[in-house]
């Protein structure tokens, strides 16, 4: 068993929060999508208003951003997407994609679209389907053939690629739908309920794919009512209800509970926990303490993925979709360039002198950091499931957290964040992330999601050397706390 040691710090300290603070940091880069007072009213035969699906919506999707469109059924998500694609025309307001009208054919070369259901030609097989869409983008034969091979492999339809699409299950159709949306290696990918009909493996893959594309600097619009999907992937989101925007912001800004802090460690004994509580009380003058100490339990998703991974390792036969392979190679091209940018951004963010500046270094930096951290988030969760303790304390203290995640511990978590596929199937997302991340810094960030925020936190820790002593004190079992905290 991997001895994972993951410390989950309060994400509110993450640079991701700087997205909210600095959208203008786009530095004049024009948004991929700009909706202004966008309204769509459906009319009946007599031209009377029948339903207002979208009502005065204003939002922007910025370059290199994974943007979520959330809302219950009938909230206007798909209608908004159709307006963006030019499949519907606004009743009022305007929408621009890459600065042009949605009906402009030229912009469609840069867009990939997956509708809420896979609408495919039933008489074509998977290869013919992808070949058809590839031709619409005027891809040459060689490129088409290569991309089709890679995409079919990626979506796990190698065994069924010559069967007519009408024979496919819903999930298989969804996979080929995803493949067709990627055939042109789009700059802007629109995914409308992409995980509908997919099994947990497919769902996991799609989420990884979205993150992977985000790392490459692609812009993704993700529409879903499955909140977990969105939470795992997006940088920023709007929540729609009744055709209107009810909330807008980053995941963290919308989801973080500001008055709680969660620490995730290897399993701890009672004494250590009590010492931890004592330290917290001591440092906060008794104002804060441990509230809850739990053992994290493996999620059903992890269990399922584990079972399937074992079946795959036993080479069990299936005529349906397989679990799919690596992200298509053509979708990973230029990865090195993207990583270089990420690296540069991180190095600037981790510089003590620039720690504040990094928070305002513009949306690209913020998005990249946030995205990288999120990638590792799944890995961290998976690793944490192997034997960690979870501690929740009231309030948060950046200096304290920074002191807890000293360099030594971060290195350990980095090691834990790269489990081998055979031993940690639940860590599949982490695998795909680490496969494309070659730098140690990247590995660290992948491994400790909330610790990405920790790059800021780490900077703080360097400014506060006494906390190192505190950590050592904690780890050695010495402490002077005056009492145990509350435990649940």
């Amino acid at each position, binding site marked *: 068993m991997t001895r994972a040691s993951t410390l989950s710090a309060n994400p509110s300290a993450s640079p991701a929060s700087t997205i909210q603070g600095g959208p203008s940091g786009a530095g004049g880069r024009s948004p991929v999508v700009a909706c202004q007072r966008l309204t769509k009213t*459906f009319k009946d035969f007599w031209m009377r208003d029948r339903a207002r699906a979208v009502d005065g919506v204003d939002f922007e999707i910025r370059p290199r951003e994974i943007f979520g469109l959330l809302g219950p059924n009938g909230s206007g998500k798909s209608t908004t997407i*159709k307006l963006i*694609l*030019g*499949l*519907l*025309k606004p009743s009022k307001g305007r929408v621009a994609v890459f600065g042009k009208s949605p*009906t402009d*054919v*030229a912009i*469609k*070369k840069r*867009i990939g*679209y997956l*509708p809420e*259901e896979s*609408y*495919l*030609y039933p*008489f*074509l097989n998977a290869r*013919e389907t992808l070949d*058809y*869409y*590839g*031709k*619409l*983008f*005027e*891809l*040459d*034969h060689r490129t*088409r053939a290569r991309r089709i091979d890679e995409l079919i492999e990626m979506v796990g339809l190698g065994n069924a690629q010559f069967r*007519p699409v009408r024979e496919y299950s819903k999930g298989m159709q969804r996979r080929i*739908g995803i493949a*067709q949306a990627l055939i*042109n290696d789009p700059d802007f990918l629109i995914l409308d309920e992409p995980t509908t009909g997919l099994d947990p493996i497919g769902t996991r893959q799609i989420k990884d794919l979205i993150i992977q594309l985000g790392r490459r600097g692609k812009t993704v619009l993700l529409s879903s009512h499955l909140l977990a999907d969105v939470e795992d992937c997006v940088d920023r989101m709007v929540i729609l209800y009744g055709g209107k925007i009810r909330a807008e912001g980053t995941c963290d800004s919308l989801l973080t509970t500001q008055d709680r802090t969660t620490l995730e460690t290897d399993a701890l004994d009672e004494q250590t926990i009590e010492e931890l509580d004592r330290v917290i009380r001591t440092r906060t003058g008794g104002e804060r303490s441990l509230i809850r100490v739990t053992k994290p339990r493996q999620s059903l998703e992890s269990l399922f993925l584990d079972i399937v991974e074992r079946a795959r390792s036993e080479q069990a036969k299936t005529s349906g979709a397989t679990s799919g392979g690596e992200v298509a190679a053509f979708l990973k091209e230029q990865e090195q360039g993207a990583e270089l940018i990420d690296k540069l951004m991180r190095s600037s963010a981790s510089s003590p002198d620039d720690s504040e500046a990094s928070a305002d270094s513009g949306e690209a930096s913020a998005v990249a950091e946030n995205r990288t951290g999120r990638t590792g988030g799944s890995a961290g969760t998976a690793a944490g499931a192997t034997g960690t303790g979870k501690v929740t304390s009231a309030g948060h203290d950046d200096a304290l957290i920074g002191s807890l995640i000293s360099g030594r511990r971060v290195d350990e978590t980095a090691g834990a964040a790269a489990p081998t596929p055979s031993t940690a199937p639940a860590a599949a997302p982490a695998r795909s992330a680490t496969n494309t991340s070659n730098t140690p810094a990247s590995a660290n960030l992948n491994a400790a999601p909330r610790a990405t925020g920790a790059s800021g936190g780490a900077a703080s820790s360097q400014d506060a050397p006494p906390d190192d002593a505190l950590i050592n004190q904690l780890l050695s079992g010495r402490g002077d706390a005056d009492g145990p905290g509350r435990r649940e």
Partner: protein
Amino acid sequence: MGFSAFFSKLGRWQRTTPFKIGASIAVVIAAAVALWVYLVAANNPADQGGAPGAASATTAPPAAEGEPSRPEDVSERQLSEQTAQTGKLERDTQVEGDRSALDSTQRILGEIVQARQDPTNVAISLAIVTGLALTVVWLGLALTYLGLVVVAGLLAWPLSILGLTNAAHLTLGVVALTAAFATLMQALRLALSGSGAVRAIARNVLAEAVRLKLSLVFIVLLVLLLAALPLQLDPASPLRYRVQSFLQYGTGISFWIIALLVVLLSVASVTYEQRDRVIWQTMTKPVPPWKYILGKWVGVAGLAAVLLAVCGSGIFLFTEYLRSQPAKGEDSPYVTMRGGVTHDRYLLEKQVLTSRESVAFQPPQIDMEQFNKSVLARIENEIKSNPDFKDTNENKARLEREMRDAALLGYRSIEPGQFETYVFRGLKKVKEAGEPITLRFKINSGANAPDQIYKLTFWPSARAPFRQESVLGQMQSIELVPDVIDADGNLYLRVYNADISTDPPSTNPDTITFPPDGLEVSYPVSSFRWNFLRVVGVLWIKLAFLAMVGVATSTFLSFPVACLVSLGIFFMAESSSFLLSSLENYSTTDYDGNPVLMKIIVANISQVVAQAFRIYGELRPVGRLADGLLLPWSAVATGLAGLAVMSGVLYAAAVAIFRRRELAIYSGH
């Protein structure tokens, strides 16, 4: 090595370039050898007739010269009495000492007999088959198709032995047509295999056509009907009738089935995509509306071209096969025991498998002064006999039209024992070329006695009269030497409603009437094969127009409504000629001359529709092909230009509509 591995190896081998080159050389050599064998056999006198003493028709005089005619049927008796095959025409020419007529006649017969040695038709047939074979080879399917041919032969052979000849022929026909269709479809798919929206969409339509039941039913039906059609031909009937029937029904049925398929496929292809929302994924790619609609049209028009090519090739090859069969009275193809050419063969070669230009007689000049007086007198009579009659312009125009029609009808009618002279102009070129001309006529009578034989006498200017028998309603043909045409290119023909060779003349019991297209002369201007090619071309132009109609209506209508509209347009276009002629006799007033609103609306709508599709309606190539009448290039060009403009207008409208459509809103469910 198992069968699977063996066939797999063969499959790979047939796709290699060396194999394709070798197979192509083999195919070309086989075709050349086949042509050479044919030429040797055709020029071998021992092969002509087979019977001892059988003379080559090329050297023999017309077989029936000086002999009484054989009573095969009315037409043959007519020809035997008048044409070059009988002695009468020769006697007439001898009486008048006109050797040129005899020369002309002998030249015609020589041409017919030489047609057997003419390798052109065989070469064309071989070229079609060789072209298909080479296509198969380069598609990498040579061994597959060879296997298919062997299997078809193995299926047909026992059927043939068991006496089920028709079933054997049907099997071979279906296999041949299916193989040709598959080959041409594959070739078209290859032609459309490049990237780009138009080609991708067009190719997708082809896949849809083959894999969807809707269109597959039509394709199978077409192949089966075309393969079964030769079995319906009566072997006992004269060869020319068999050929005419095959051309008429083969071409006609093919066109109608393909036309219905074109309409349904073009409508289904566009509307189903909208209904099933597949179009969302296409139109969110860089595909402008004009490319989408063009791609759909190219796909459907391409499929129509393939089907028409398959049917056209099948019809042409089978027609050539029929041509090579013995005609009525022949002992073997082109050969009789007596030498010369039979009547059946003569008419087949000179009236069916040819392309002739036809000239109708000139209507009489009307003395307008006298005509106007007659009109006024008629109006006065009407007023006197009917107090409600009003002297309006409408009524006057109607009366004028009725009187003009009556005058023409009177000119085309001949009372018993009387005669009428008809003038055919513009035949100077024919006279100069020394080509014989064909007089075609059909008579009607109020008696409506189908078994009554009418005896007529035709008397061309400066020639001797000749007798002709005819039944009612049946088109008859008579060959005339070019000398009946005067120096100005006019033919004056006097027609008696009697046999004036007897004394006293033998008159018929009733007045006879030539219908509007019932009296004409025609002369050969081109070959059958070029005419056939033009006919197929015109049929494709019509189908391409229908494809555009289907695509255009589908841009804003659901499947059932678009089908209804497209089929309505198709039927209206096909019947527009009939509609126009009907409208000439359609009155918008009641008997008292009062205008009737409903009639006015009907007349105006019908007029607009008929005029809109006039060009389409006037292109009636199938009937002309079966009658051996020329479909001139000018008609092809006019039809092409007219229908191209109409298709262009429909296309522009479809693109404009499609641009304005919100594709995510569709009510076709």
